[in-house]
């Protein structure tokens, strides 16, 4: 079952991609200190015909894509975190997962650690990173928004670099 806090809107994820460029726009939308809430325009509105609640947000076709990648990334980040002091390579992976979650607008997405066989730690981690890279690549192909597709492809490429550079 999807954890509510792991559910993200594509708007958040894509907003993270161009956060700098869009910062002024987002600030204007969210309202900073001193921002005034616009007064509703009521003059001339037929109250009986007016909608009684905020219309639902349009369906986001990429929501399952974002949710799946966030969930898998957060899980692997939580799995590797206890081992980050063992190898610089592992610490780098944890940092990359954290950065990727931030890029998807979910820097604090919860993840449940999955037991890992420490007798063959590097091989186990390499295998799991490969599985994550495959998932992210698949979701990049499935994404409808081209900017999200490109972000996911870049994430998969970053994982590929780490897998190639795994300790012997």
């Amino acid at each position, binding site marked *: 079952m999807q954890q509510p806090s792991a559910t993200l809107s594509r708007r958040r994820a894509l907003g993270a991609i161009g956060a700098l460029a869009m910062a002024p726009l987002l600030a204007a939308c969210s309202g900073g200190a001193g921002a005034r809430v616009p007064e509703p325009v009521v003059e001339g509105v037929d109250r009986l015909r007016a909608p009684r609640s905020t219309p639902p947000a349009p369906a986001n076709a990429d929501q399952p894509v974002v949710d799946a990648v966030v969930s898998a990334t957060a899980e692997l980040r939580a799995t590797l975190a206890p081992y980050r002091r063992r190898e610089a390579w592992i610490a780098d992976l944890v940092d990359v997962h954290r950065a*990727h979650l931030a890029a998807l607008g979910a820097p604090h997405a919860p993840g449940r650690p999955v037991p890992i066989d420490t007798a063959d730690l590097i091989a186990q981690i390499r295998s799991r990173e490969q599985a994550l890279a495959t998932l992210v690549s698949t979701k*990049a*192909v499935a994404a409808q928004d*081209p900017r999200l597709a*490109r972000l996911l*492809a870049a994430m998969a490429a*970053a994982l*590929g670099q780490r897998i*190639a550079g795994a300790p012997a």
Partner: protein
Amino acid sequence: MSARMSAQPHLVATLRAALASEHAAVYLFAALRTRASQRPLADALGVSYDFHRAARDLLAERLAALGDDAPPGAAPAYRLPADLGSDAAVTAAALAAEQAAVTAYGDLVAETTGADRARAVAWMSASAVRELSFGGTPSTLPGL
């Protein structure tokens, strides 16, 4: 432009641009390989050359399948980076070329769908990994 191709003009234009880039990459890596004095560097350049040549051929086949009767061909020559007189300079040129390829494949990912995008995603990862052969360091989001 044939009637069959005109149904997907944007895709054809995108693939044509990618094919033109691959022609240039093939030329560059062939030239760089002749300038490498160390065997490991020559081997790594050979891997890049083979990859970009295969990508070039796949793109040409794809355009032919789309009915493109005038895909871009290779230029007689391309401008090479200046001063390729050392392995360090050759390595730097190869790294820059692979980094440019990662970015170009990212564009291809954004501009395509389905099997074309799947191929571009795979190429993006492959080029990002080859960057490491030329002294590149892993990045958080290659090509972005």
